[in-house]
């Protein structure tokens, strides 16, 4: 698992470069379409400058910018005592020393994300809904998932990548805007004008036009799609990291089930950072899959459970030897933090037809993780 985390770090650097390339290409295409012939000399350097500028800005201010986009406000440490307690508890479990700043989004949905700014200063953002309507252990699971992202180095990378992806979108939309406005005539006239020469060169021109338009219109979509490969696996890893810290897979399972049944919407630029995408989104593995892994995990005896969960999660590792976290001797799995859910509504315990006993918060609907029958 920790090798996986290291591999991801290397992939991160590659991904930032790919995003940069995409940005440069989009700028080149945009300029070439608006001012034919000057794409290579003007557009590509312009794209490179934009990349350098955005990478710098994203490193310095990307975190604050993303928090603003989400409408997150600094949390009052006294009023959100439970949240700050949970964060401090988990810092001990993760062996992390720098406490992240806490922010709250005044939104009833259930979600959370973490950002990382300059000098490794991280921040944790949770929705009001998460603070209000889940049990203490579930809130702990959500926070642990985000802290695992921070610990794995995903947060720093995703903060940068999200900001860069938005730069790609910006450049592409500027190009499209240029095409649609007055400059368009020049582009339209210029291309067929040159095409009217010889047959071969003409075909080449049309091909070039098609490629340029494809780059311009596909760039931001491609950036988003690229996130899928890069961030889906990190979600499984963060789930695993959260379980290693809390030793409480049930709480994470309960949380994901609750998130699944609570529809909510957030700015799409933020999606790759979010705890979970309740609606289908390319940046996250389907929630159903994560839920499946966790409920598989809970049905197995302790020693094999993490092994199997990881094996299911990391399909690409199938057949290779799996190095598990060295810090999970079986005796540790018997460790359970006392969970008293103080200060929150007491969840009711319901027994499902299949024999599984679940916690159900008052007024919330939950489906049985085992047989998926509805428990109310």
């Amino acid at each position, binding site marked *: 698992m920790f090798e996986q985390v290291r591999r991801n770090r290397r992939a991160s650097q590659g991904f930032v470069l790919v995003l940069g390339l995409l940005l440069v290409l989009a700028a080149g295409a945009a300029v070439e379409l608006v001012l034919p012939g000057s794409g290579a000399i003007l557009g590509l350097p312009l794209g490179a400058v934009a990349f350098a500028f955005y990478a710098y800005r994203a490193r310095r201010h990307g975190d604050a910018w993303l928090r603003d986009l989400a409408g997150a406000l600094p949390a009052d440490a006294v009023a959100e005592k439970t949240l700050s*307690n949970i964060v401090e*508890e988990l810092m001990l479990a993760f*062996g992390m020393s720098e406490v992240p700043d806490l922010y709250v989004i005044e939104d009833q949905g259930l979600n959370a994300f973490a950002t990382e700014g300059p000098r490794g200063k991280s921040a944790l953002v949770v929705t009001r809904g998460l603070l209000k309507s889940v049990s203490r252990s579930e809130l702990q699971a959500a926070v642990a998932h985000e802290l695992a992202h921070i610990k794995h180095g995903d947060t720093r990378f995703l903060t940068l990548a999200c900001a860069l992806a938005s730069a790609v979108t910006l450049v592409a939309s500027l190009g499209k805007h240029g095409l649609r406005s007055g400059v368009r005539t020049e582009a339209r006239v210029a291309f067929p004008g040159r095409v009217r020469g010889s047959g071969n060169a003409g075909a080449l021109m049309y091909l070039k036009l098609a490629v340029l338009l494809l780059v311009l219109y596909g760039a931001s979509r491609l950036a988003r799609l690229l996130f899928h490969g890069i961030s889906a696996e990190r979600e499984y890893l963060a789930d695993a990291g959260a379980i290693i810290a809390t030793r409480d897979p049930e709480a994470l399972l309960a949380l994901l089930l609750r998130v699944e049944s609570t529809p909510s919407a957030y700015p799409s630029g933020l999606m790759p950072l979010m705890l979970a995408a309740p609606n289908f989104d390319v940046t996250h593995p389907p929630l159903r899959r994560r839920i499946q892994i966790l409920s598989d995990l809970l049905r197995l005896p302790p020693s094999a459970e993490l092994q199997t969960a990881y094996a299911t999660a990391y399909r690409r590792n199938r057949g290779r030897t799996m190095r598990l976290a060295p810090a999970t001797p079986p*005796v540790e799995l018997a460790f359970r933090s*006392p969970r008293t859910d103080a200060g929150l509504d007491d969840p009711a315990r319901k027994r499902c037809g299949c*024999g599984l006993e679940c916690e159900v918060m008052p007024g919330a609907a939950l489906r049985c993780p085992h047989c998926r029958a509805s428990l109310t």
Partner: protein
Amino acid sequence: MVAVIAGVGFLAVVALLALAGLVLVYNALVRMRNQVRNGWSQIDVQLKRRADLIPNLVSTVQGYAGHESETLEKVIQARNHAGNQKSTEGRMEAEGLLSQALVNLMAVSERYPELKADQNFRELQEELTSTENRIAFSRQFYNDSVMNYHNLRESFPSNIVAGAFSFQEEPLWRLAEGDAAYTAPVVAFGGASSAQRG
């Protein structure tokens, strides 16, 4: 002549590599041992935090549930007993008893709706929950650190370095039989419920 130079050069390279390996392993051992010690002091900090919470908790519960004096007395006794321990093993056991006494106190307080509604009590309860979690997590981190340290200390070839520089074994913090944190998982499939909440 050339053969001699090549031989000496080869030996020098081997010696350098061995030295570099020694330095790396030694430093890794030191780093891990320091992490273990830091982990231990973290547990200590959290146990003190819990001990500081108890007088306040006891006086609050007393206000609403005065005739539960036996339970309260046990908590105070366990706290003082834990504070007086000198040996590590004695401390571990005494802290386990204190955990048990606190669980009993919390179970008793369930019977007093007015106490449960008291804002001060709710805050104390949150603090106590948090502190218990902190103790559990720092203990977990400590044991994980010990595990990592032992893995390196005992595996080849780092065990040679560990032996030469006498890196000692560190104790794992094991749970006592009656400890609150020793309860079985909450989820039970079929059969009787094993739900136990601390």
